[in-house]
């Protein structure tokens, strides 16, 4: 077992112990212990409800994530590369960066009705400005010497994208993917709570009305686990592969 995994397990086990201890001492249904929450997860899993709602939320997160990353990257790229585009779009970017997520969600629901498209669009609108702002920094920091080299050796457009720009943008893409995943799934829950009849957010809404803290924790932890799996299974291997050229990666 790697020392990293051992540390991770030790911290997790420690937190669970403290949680159990607190729950036992307080002995109130408003703070269920880890065992009760785990039992709730198993019950919900058996009934099929957990899987269904997790699946629905995950689908919304995926669609919103992919769209927001693509749109935000294109927007950030254009703003980072062209002074004029930046001048024209910067006030708009600032406006959307500071527009509360809740306002966007409510407005889109009012304008489009309580439909799936409005829900996903609201999440995308919330995330695109963050991606754009990060990628813009990346696009501004491209190495001019390599740019000149690519010019001198007449790199094709495709070569420039794949071999020159993407590797330089990679840390910025990675940063916006990390914060993006975290932000998007939180916003998706709000969107579901306000206007959808399925998904983790909707279940939290039901549990909230019943003051069912056990279900709230069961659904939350289930989704956190999924996000953690995406981090381990997708983002970290991707990062490791892309950073091979730097040699030994420093573990964060």
């Amino acid at each position, binding site marked *: 077992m790697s020392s990293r995994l051992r540390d991770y397990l030790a911290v997790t086990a420690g937190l669970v112990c403290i949680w159990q201890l607190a729950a036992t001492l307080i002995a109130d249904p408003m703070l269920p212990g880890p065992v009760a929450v785990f039992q709730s997860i198993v019950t919900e899993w058996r009934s099929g409800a957990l899987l269904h709602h997790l699946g629905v939320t995950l689908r919304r997160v995926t669609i919103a994530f992919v769209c927001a990353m693509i749109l935000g990257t294109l927007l950030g790229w254009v703003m980072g590369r062209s002074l004029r585009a930046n001048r024209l779009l910067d006030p708009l970017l600032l406006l959307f960066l500071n527009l509360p997520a809740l306002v966007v969600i409510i407005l889109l629901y009012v304008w489009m009705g309580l439909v799936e498209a409005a829900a996903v669009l609201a999440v995308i609108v919330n995330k695109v400005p963050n991606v754009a702002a990060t990628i813009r920094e990346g696009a501004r920091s491209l190495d001019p*010497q*390599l740019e*000149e*080299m690519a*010019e*001198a*050796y007449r*790199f094709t457009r495709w*070569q420039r994208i794949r*071999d*020159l720009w993407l*590797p330089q943008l990679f840390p910025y893409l990675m940063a916006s993917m990390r914060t993006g995943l975290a932000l998007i799934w939180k916003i998706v829950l709000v969107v579901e709570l306000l206007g959808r009849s399925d998904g983790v957010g909707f279940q939290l809404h039901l549990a909230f009305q019943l003051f069912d803290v056990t279900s709230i924790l069961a659904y939350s932890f289930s989704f956190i686990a999924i996000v953690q799996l995406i981090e381990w299974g997708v983002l970290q291997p991707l990062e490791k592969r*892309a950073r091979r*050229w*730097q*040699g030994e990666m420093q573990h964060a």
Partner: protein
Amino acid sequence: MLELELEEKGYDQRLLGNLNLQISAGDRLALVGPSGCGKTTLLNIIGGLDRAFKGQRRLADPEPKIAYMFQEPRLLPWRTVEQNLRMVCSCRNQALDLLDEVELLDAACRYPRELSLGMARRVALARALALEPDLLLLDEPLVSLDPSTALRMLRLVEKLLRKRPKMALVLVSHNPDDADRIGAQLLQFDTVTGEVLLPNNEKTASAGQLLV
């Protein structure tokens, strides 16, 4: 293959101008002078990287292929040595042959950060040759190398030039001996064409003309 009539080019508050240059197949020309005298600026103009100057740059038809080896190796750090070469030539065998020629075949799979400066320069040289250029531009290929590495690099350039007698070369160097060694004609900025270098306010200087 290339004709340059440079009337005026301002850089760093100085002026380069009144220069005619013709480069034909097999020519070997060295731009020699102290640092900051405009050698690299002129090389950029010859190479077509810098088009903001007064004058004319004419290329023969069909257009000659020009390869530029920069003073910094400028390799893509996230690509291996072989991949860096194959950005320029698509054929694997050609890339490996060139690496063999610059004596770096065993470094094909290494990343640029694993190379010394001398090795990285040789990779950059191989990449320039991978273009199969009609005109090769070398910007200070020996600068900041230790004497033995510099000598090795110089011998390598000599060898590669012997193998490619039709390829024209423009070398930028601050050391006239290097230029002599590969048999290049000198365009000495400070002495031969004193008029090449002018302070910015003296725009009426006489022509320092040089035909190669």
